[in-house]
């Protein structure tokens, strides 16, 4: 047997034995990324819907900035958040550095442009196709933002999953602002980096498998949900007295 198969076997044993250390890290990762994803998606989808419907001076500049932020390197985000939250930084008084909150903040900054840019495109397309019908009915910008975003809710779910994927797989920012402290701020990606550098390949591999499994499960749930939606679209049935179709 070689190192890879040895490591894979040990990793499998760690997973099947519900290793406490492994579960704690996985749980923390999920907690940080889910919280960040929730905050970023709420803000990002609202911002994207607003940008999709509104026309104002400087909109082009805002969109260019937003698209530029899509390619933000996570280590740069980590560095900026570190500087902001460090004791001498403008947000140092919060005392968030090397804590759960700092990691959430860093991931929100990373993921928010993704949520905003993708949802902006969805809502803008819907606005171009149907906006004038809703304007003729008296729907102003704010109402159209809500209606069109809500109407695109299934497509927005894909945006949410993409955001979660970006958040949970990110390593640079959480490493810098979280400090990778065992039992406190160590998450899957930072643990994988550390265990690999230490030579503890089974643990790193086990964490990698768990990470992949989480993202895989999310995609399975999304695919199932899409199928369910398609089935209901075809049959025309409606849940919750019509509001969720």
């Amino acid at each position: 047997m070689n190192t890879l198969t040895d490591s894979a076997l040990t990793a499998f044993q760690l997973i099947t034995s519900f290793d406490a250390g492994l579960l704690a890290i996985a749980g923390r990762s999920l907690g940080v990324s889910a919280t960040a994803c929730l905050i970023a998606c709420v803000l990002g989808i609202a911002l994207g819907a607003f940008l999709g419907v509104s026309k104002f001076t400087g909109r082009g500049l805002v969109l260019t900035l937003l698209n530029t932020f899509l390619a933000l390197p996570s280590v740069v985000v980590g560095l900026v958040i570190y500087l902001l939250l460090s004791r001498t930084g403008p947000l140092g008084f919060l005392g968030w550095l090397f804590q759960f909150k700092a990691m959430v903040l860093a991931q929100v900054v990373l993921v928010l442009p993704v949520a905003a840019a993708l949802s902006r495109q969805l809502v803008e397309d819907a606005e171009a196709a149907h906006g004038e019908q809703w304007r003729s009915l008296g729907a102003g910008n704010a109402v159209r933002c809500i209606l069109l975003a809500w109407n695109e809710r299934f497509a927005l779910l894909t945006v949410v999953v993409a955001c979660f994927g970006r958040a949970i797989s990110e390593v640079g920012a959480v490493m810098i602002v979280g400090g990778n402290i065992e039992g406190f701020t160590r998450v899957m990606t930072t643990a994988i980096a550390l265990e690999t550098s230490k030579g503890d390949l089974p643990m790193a591999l086990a964490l990698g498998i768990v990470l992949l499994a989480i993202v895989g499960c999310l995609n399975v749930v999304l695919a199932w949900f899409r199928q369910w939606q398609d089935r209901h679209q075809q049959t025309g049935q409606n849940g919750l007295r019509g509001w969720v179709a």
Partner: protein
Amino acid sequence: MKPLLSLQDVSLNLGGVQALSHVTLSIQTGEQVALIGANGSGKSTLLRLLNGLHQSNQGHVQLASCRQAMLFQRPHMLRTSSLNNVALGLWLDRSLHLNWKACKTRALEALSLVGLSGVKFQNAATLSGGQQQRLALARAWVRAPQLLFLDEPTASLDPPAKREIEALVHQLIKPDGQETPITLVFASHNLGQVKRWASRVIYVEQGRILADLPTADFFNADCLKQHSQQAFLFLQGETP
């Protein structure tokens, strides 16, 4: 008598294209006006301008202050029940100050009028084209409009659905027991429909009004030829 709607020397440029040029027209309450012309002639743009969906670049526009509704060729329905779609159409008219429950009650009546009570809880986005157009009509109807704009409402429908919509529109513009019919402004390629609905026909070509005549005169070849050679040629091309 003050017109319900009027345009004075109005021009409109959309994305670098001169969509309307020096358009002057006025529409009185109770008139049924048809806008006809080739594709891209500007009739839909004119309709949208009259509905306030476009802002003119030049000229004076006096829009109607009464309750109005517009039907599009392909109505957009939200992915929710038919009932919610109609109720939402009413709720969005905030001048009526209706709460959601009252909107739903009226929406049920409108659905019954267009024969869609059976699909009130069905996802509106899954309805057929004809049903969606009836639903759009219910959404317009429920607002009790005094002015109705129709943008080729039957263009994408099969003959039976077309007949259903025509009958419903006829019922909507001339409600039983009402002296003055609803003011109707519609764009259409269907000359039979124009003859049935319109009291006045406006021919639009390249963003200009080239003929504006009572329906009887418009379909009188000699009269039309005298007023507008282009409109006459268009009509000859359209008539079998």
